[in-house]
């Protein structure tokens, strides 16, 4: 357990020591999104009855921050360690594949949650936000950061170079996040796009998270939670297997 805790702690320190870049910067980005979109679209959109667009936007932005930062933490840590060679420091000790997995995962989730909390903390000064079901908020924040932490571990193990990781981030993670309903309710989309959105697991994370705030969503939170939890379980199983096999870590 000490080994696991040390690795988790090291991963925590790794982002916390440079929090201006890893926490404050994403919070500022989210705030800019809110100010620009919230202002330009004020009064023109009302995704749900009685909910202002800016208020609608905040949970989406917070969740986007959770997801992107959880992914970035695990993936950049692993890829950088592989590139610089200091990955040997965690490969030489007697850490099991489970310890390795959970340490990276929990640290990734921690960074995601810290960033998400930061976004909420900053935006409440600008937007009036209610929170109907805090437990759903927490559940989806945990599930979402978990999925992205796991994806980050996979991407980090797979990537040998920064541009490979950037491709993963720019061509998979970013489109799936942007097209998941962060900025809009999917009911405003044409039917075909609505069907496509339902195939995007990120949609369920954001919709469920938003349900926690407003008590309304595009689909039932139970359905979202089931889909997201199933994805998390399947991805975790795959990742544990990859780590055990030493995929791109041990020759």
């Amino acid at each position, binding site marked *: 357990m*000490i*080994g696991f*805790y*040390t*690795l988790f*702690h*090291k991963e925590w*320190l*790794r982002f916390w*020591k*440079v929090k201006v870049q890893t926490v404050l910067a994403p919070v500022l980005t989210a705030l800019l999104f809110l100010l620009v979109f919230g202002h330009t679209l004020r009064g023109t959109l009302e995704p749900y009855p009685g909910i202002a667009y800016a208020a609608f936007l905040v949970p989406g932005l917070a969740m986007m921050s959770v997801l992107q930062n959880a992914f970035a933490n695990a993936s950049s840590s692993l890829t950088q*360690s592989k590139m*610089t*060679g*200091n990955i*040997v*420091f*965690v*490969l*030489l*000790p*007697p*850490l*099991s594949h489970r310890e390795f997995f959970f340490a990276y995962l929990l640290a990734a989730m921690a960074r995601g949650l810290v960033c998400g909390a930061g976004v909420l903390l900053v935006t409440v000064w600008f937007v009036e936000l209610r929170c109907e079901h805090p437990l759903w908020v927490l559940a989806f924040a945990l599930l979402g950061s978990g999925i992205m932490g796991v994806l980050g571990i996979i991407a980090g193990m797979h990537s040998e170079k920064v541009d490979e990781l950037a491709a993963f981030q720019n061509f998979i993670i970013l489109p799936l996040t942007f097209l998941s309903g962060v900025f809009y309710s999917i009911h405003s989309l044409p039917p075909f796009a609505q069907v496509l959105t339902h195939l995007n697991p990120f949609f369920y994370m954001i919709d469920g998270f938003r349900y926690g705030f407003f008590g309304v969503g595009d689909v039932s939170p139970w359905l979202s939670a089931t889909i997201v939890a199933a994805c998390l379980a399947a991805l975790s199983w795959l990742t544990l297997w990859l780590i055990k096999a*030493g995929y791109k870590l*041990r*020759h």
Partner: protein
Amino acid sequence: MRRLVPAIQVERVVKRYGELQALAGVSLEIAQGEFFGLLGPNGAGKTTLISILAGLAIASSGSARIMGHDVVAAYRQARRALGVVPQELVFDPFFTVREALTIQSGYFGLRNNRAWIDELLHHLDLTEKADTNMRQLSGGMKRRVLIGQALAHKPPVIVLDEPTAGVDVELRQSLWQFIRRLNRDGHTIVLTTHYLEEAEALCGRIAMLKQGEIVANDSTQNLLQRFSGCYVNLKLAPHRLPEALQPMLAQQDESGFRLALRSYDEMGHVMAALRSAGAKVQEMEVMQPDLEEVFVKIMRSEGVTASRAEHP
């Protein structure tokens, strides 16, 4: 008396990377307390063998054990017993020297390891740099931290993969002093190095790897004695080597001839041949082979095995 478990036991280890065979059935046993040298040219398979011992690579076939623990089946015990100083100068730029050492010992399940870490810092001459970020250290200091990290969990077996590459002479001396002390304290040391004089001075036993095979494995003394002959440098007048001595010729240039002798006994034959040819000896020098020559000979000979290495 009960025989101690070998510190390292490698049995018929084969490692293939696609078409390339990096290790072709290596077997090796290193006893506890030995100071063992693993030599070989670049690409001979030294680092691959170390990687397999450390669990950084997985053998295609065969097995390896550290202090009796299989490196795959009992990897936790095996890794706890092993400290590896990697060849590359790697470091984590987020941490200070003390943090790096504390984290490393934490990975091995050790908490409150401050006393030992202080001792390591002292012996590695890093006490003043304890709170300096790794990025700000010189290459030699980073190398010392790597050694500290390998020792953070006090492993009984320590593998140093070319630890003195690019390290200045003074530091090299102090490092060896420290590592010799560890060996005296009972740690088994396995060393790969390009500096053969280091291996000759430090290692009690040496194995040489060539193209993934062990081509020599013996005590340093035996290796040197196995090539027990000597060299004779001759300056002759006239500058012509008698016909009878041609088979012994090892090297020739304008200043003279170098003859390779199987033993000192052949000196009589050399002198007689010179006398009968009427050659006058202007200068004569007898030289002992060193490990470098042994190494070069073994590496040059085709299909040499540990049991039938030849005389010069």
